């Protein structure tokens, strides 16, 4: 259950997030676990309380998973909230993690989807597989 990540693993994660998401236009990216721990955050989180965001996102994802069960789904693979200027996109990474991407209105949702899907594939083995 518990997660221990080496410096190399963390560096790997940072590289993937920077290369594929920040360079692709995201403002900020967080990797959190589903109990609310913040694993890595990248980008410009000025004025953003990343610790609270991690806890709330895990809870939000958990609540949504319960909604999924009510309609006969296991889980939702992604969630998206659209704001006036800033959007937030959540992707499930394996069973235990969530990738949170914040991006502005000038970035297309399609691009974010494509990039988060790619990142998710790369992250799963680093985080110890699908479990």
């Amino acid at each position, binding site marked *: 259950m518990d997660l221990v990540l080496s410096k190399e693993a963390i560096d790997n994660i940072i590289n993937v997030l920077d290369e594929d998401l920040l360079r692709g236009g995201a403002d900020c990216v967080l990797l959190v*676990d589903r109990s609310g*721990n913040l694993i890595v955050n990248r980008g410009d989180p000025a004025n953003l309380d990343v610790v609270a965001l991690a806890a709330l996102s895990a809870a939000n994802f958990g609540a949504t998973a319960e909604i999924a069960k009510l309609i006969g789904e296991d889980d939702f693979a992604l969630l998206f909230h659209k704001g006036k200027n800033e959007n937030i996109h959540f992707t499930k990474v394996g069973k235990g993690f969530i990738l949170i991407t914040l991006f502005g209105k000038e970035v297309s949702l399609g691009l974010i989807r494509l990039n988060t899907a790619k990142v998710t594939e790369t992250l799963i083995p680093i985080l110890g597989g699908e479990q």
Partner: protein
Amino acid sequence: MSFIDLSKNEVQCKIVYYGPGRGGKTTNLLYLHQAMTEAVRGKMVTIDTKGDRTLFFDFLPLALGKIQGLSIKIQLYTVPGQVMYNATRKLVLKGVDGIVFVADSLKVQKEKNVESLENLRQNLAEDNLDIKEVPLVLQFNKRDLGGSNIPILTVEEMEEDMNSELQVPWFSGSALKGDGVFETLREISKRTVKYVSRKLLSR
């Protein structure tokens, strides 16, 4: 579940304040929040509080310094105590590393305390956790009401109701006045960190 970041030598653990509705869980966090400096605590988040009922959870992150070179970060959560919110309680319990059970000293809450503890045991069991293995401390809250005209339980009675089988450390407290709040936190933090590191060593 705890998370250890070896690039920062940091461990993050999740501690949940559990117990019957209106027992004083939120008040514990509020007290800690106002008594600690900003260097130690992050922002407290309270979700959807209608009246003074916690509908989802409260959240307070703390940085408790270093133990053997490892920085300890602790996230405190409270659950909603009302019986009908069990789905929410299960969600908040997900990945828990340590639990403070806040019991209400009011005599009228005698049964509610026991029910809530039983509910905790069941919810943990559903997650394959044994209440006897997870770090747990009890807090008998609202002791400040002793001597008032409100009937309260004796600590002996509370021990017998809740701790005869578990045999875990317990503290008398008044979250409202801050009595016992730090003692409770210190004990559960110590136990949680020990538990997490023991699990890690046995990997």
